[in-house]
Every structure is written in C-alpha cells, then in structure tokens.
C-alpha cells in the first residue's frame, strides 16, 4: 500500500497540447502507485473529455524482471547514482548514447606496400610522364603521392588551416662538396647550420650503437624520429630513408646513440610501440656480434 505520488509539473510543452485550454490545473494530480512485490503498478490520471467532463484513467501494468538480465556490479552501482542536470527528468534506463551529427574525417596513413612502382629510367624526368608514372601532387593540401586534387579530403575545409601542412618546407642545403639534390640522407656536415666542433664525442660513429627503426609511416621525418628517441639519451645521428621521386618516407630509418645502454633502453621501450597509427619495430642495426 505504498504511495509514490509525484507532483504534476506543468511544462510549457504540455499546455500546448490542450489547444490553449488552461483548465488542467483544476484536475487532481497524477498518482503512481507501486510497483508492489508482485510487480503491479497503477498510474491514475485525470483528464477532461470532449464534453468537458472529468475523466479518471487508471492504467494497471505489471513489471517483470528478466531472468537473464545480468548487470555488472559497476553498472548496478552507476544506476544508483543520483541524476543531475537534464537527466533528472529522464526515466530509468534511458539511453545516454549520443550520436554525432558532424562528418568526421579520419586520416589514415598508408601502410607500406601500397606504393606504386617506380619507373626504371630515373635519369630522364620527362620519360616518367610519358610512361604514365605521374607523381600525384594535391594542390589543395600539398600532399604528394596520396591523392589527386579532385579527391582531396580537405577540400571542403577551404582554406586549409596550417594544421594540415604537416610537411614544412625544408631549408635548401648548400651543396658544398657533392650535390645532395635528392631527398636522401644528408650527412651532418652538409646540413644547414651544421657548424659543429670537430672531434666532438657526439660525432663519433659506433656500429654497435646503431638502431634500425622500421614500419614508419610515410609522413615520418628525421625531426620526428629525433624527438621520439632523444628522451633515452644523446643521439649522434638520425636518418630516415626518403623515396627520391615521391618525397615520402620509405618506412625505415636509423638512429645512432652515443651510449650503448641508451640504445638498449630505447629498443626495449619502443619496439612494438604504437607511433602514428603504426607499430614500430626497433632493433639493433647489425644483429651479429662483432
């Protein structure tokens, strides 16, 4: 015989449903009785019928527990939490999942192996276009080898923000002794601003401290690799193999540490590490002991 009467709250939306009649406040409040131990629940409501007479409506329902309905302890605990905000007016078990109405574009780096074949006569740049091996360059976002301009996923976001220009223009390296016109490894002495003291230990090359990194994404560059490995100790050299024609990473690089222990720690920590949506493989560059 438990009574759980809720005071009927007059909302703005409910008044509209009665065609402007403001006589609902004359009715007794809505009553909810139960459910009792048998699951019987009664809802008593009062309304005016078409003739203006008071009408009492009693709705009797029976609630039943599903035998297979099992909730985890945490879910049961969450349901006992007091509601707040707009959820106060919601029924128990109302779905709280939100569905986004925005279009979200996910940029997924290309896995290795999705590259096109390279033309053999690389010495003749005009011959590449004659054989149909054209380099894709998107004029909207500036990406190379990824898509054509007409297929740019960012074309609806014009003008593209600086966040999409993920390849800063490399400073032109002065070709002192040899012409480093390709995107290949540029020795430290030939890079821009490479004025170091000769004989420094930082430049000592040691085979045993060379770490090879593979399964890099196509967008990975040497500064990225340096930033990733520097926390483990002093790094004397970083190298990322670049495809000469497309300018994209070939998926592997090398890092030379000053100290062997730092290199070992980097291998232990970063092998199998998720980086730029790919799983890195980090190992000694020369597996055999010398």
């Amino acid at each position: 015989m438990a009574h759980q009467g809720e005071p009927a709250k007059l909302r703005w939306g409910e008044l509209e449903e009665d065609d402007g009649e403001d006589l609902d406040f004359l009715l007794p409040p809505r009553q909810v009785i139960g459910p009792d131990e048998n699951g019987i629940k009664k809802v008593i409501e009062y309304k005016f019928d078409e003739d203006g007479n008071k009408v009492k409506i009693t709705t009797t329902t029976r609630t039943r527990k599903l035998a297979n309905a099992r909730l985890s302890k945490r879910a049961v605990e969450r349901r006992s939490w007091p509601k707040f905000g707009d959820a106060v007016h919601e029924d128990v078990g109302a779905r709280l999942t939100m569905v986004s109405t925005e279009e979200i574009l996910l940029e997924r780096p290309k896995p290795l192996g999705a590259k096109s074949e390279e033309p053999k006569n690389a010495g003749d740049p005009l011959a590449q276009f004659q054989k149909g091996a054209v380099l894709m360059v998107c004029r909207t976002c500036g990406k190379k080898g990824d898509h054509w301009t007409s297929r740019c996923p960012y074309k609806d976001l014009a003008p593209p923000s600086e966040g999409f220009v993920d390849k800063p223009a490399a400073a032109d390296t002065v070709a002192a002794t040899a012409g480093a016109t390709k995107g290949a490894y540029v020795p430290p002495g030939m890079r821009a601003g490479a004025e170091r003291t000769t004989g420094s230990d930082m430049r000592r090359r040691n085979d045993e401290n060379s770490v090879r990194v593979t399964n890099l994404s196509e967008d990975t560059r040497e500064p990225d690799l340096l930033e990733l490995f520097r926390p483990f100790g002093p790094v004397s050299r970083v190298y990322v193999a670049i495809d000469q024609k497309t300018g994209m990473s070939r998926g592997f690089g090398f890092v030379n540490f000053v100290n062997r222990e730092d290199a070992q720690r980097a291998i232990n920590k970063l092998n199998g590490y998720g980086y730029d949506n790919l799983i890195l493989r980090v190992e000694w560059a020369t597996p055999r002991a010398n």
Partner: protein
Amino acid sequence: RGHHHAGGHHLGLVGQICTELIQNQTTCTDLVKAADPKIAQAKTFQELAQAVLEFAVNKGIEGQTFLKGLALIEQSPAIKECANFFYDGVVGSFRSALRELKEDAQTASYDAKAAYDGPDGCNRALAAENINNPAITALNSEIALLSQIAFEAICKYSN
C-alpha cells in the same frame, strides 16, 4: 637518339649512376675508369654495389695508411684526427656495408652513406687549421664519391 646513356655509354650500370650524380658526372666517370674493372663490367646493381664497396674498403685502408704516415711527419692534430678517427669511420662503414650487403640491404645502404662523414669531417678539421693539402683533399673527394656511388647502387636493387 643513338645513345641511351649520355656520357656513360661505355660504363654500363655505373655509368647510369654517374649520370645521375649531376654535379660530379665527370669526376665519377674518371674515377670509375681508373678503378677496378669489375665495377664497369657489373651486370646487376647488386654486383655493382659489391664491386664498389670492395674497392672502397681497399681505398679507405690505403688512404688511412697514407694519412697515418703523413701524421708522423706533419705533427698536425687535424691530420692525426683524419688518420685515426675519421678514416677509422670510413673503413668501418664500408666494411659494415659490404658485410650487410647480402643480408640487409637497408643497413648496407645506410652504412655506405654514413661513410661520407669521414672525408667530410676530415675536410672540416683541416679547414679549421688552415691546412691545404691537395693529396688529402683528393683522397677525401674520392672516398665521398665512392660513398655516393655505393649508396645509389644499393638503393636501386633494394627498393
């Protein structure tokens, strides 16, 4: 259109690489002609890489011996550094590249490229002491060029 490889017609595969080294075409061609005949006669890029690296290792050892002898006479810290530190790196890098050639082309190409650091560092050490020795300069240029040729050869077949 009678020639497919302008400038490198008689040098086979290595002529193609010399053609691509735009700023060193003549030097590259001259070096290859004077070097081991196996380089010009290579039929595949893997053969070419091996021949170049074998020649480079020997050249590095010869150069280091020459520099060590010079260091005894000149009493120069820069020449001593070239002989011991930088050309140790040259020989070590070329040897490592040669060793890795059949097992791991990626590491081999990296080691071949890293050999360039030797002559480059040596040149900078000499410049810091205002030493102008044409023999050392020529040796450094030759080693640097061999590094590039070997690197390009390995890249061509490891892709």
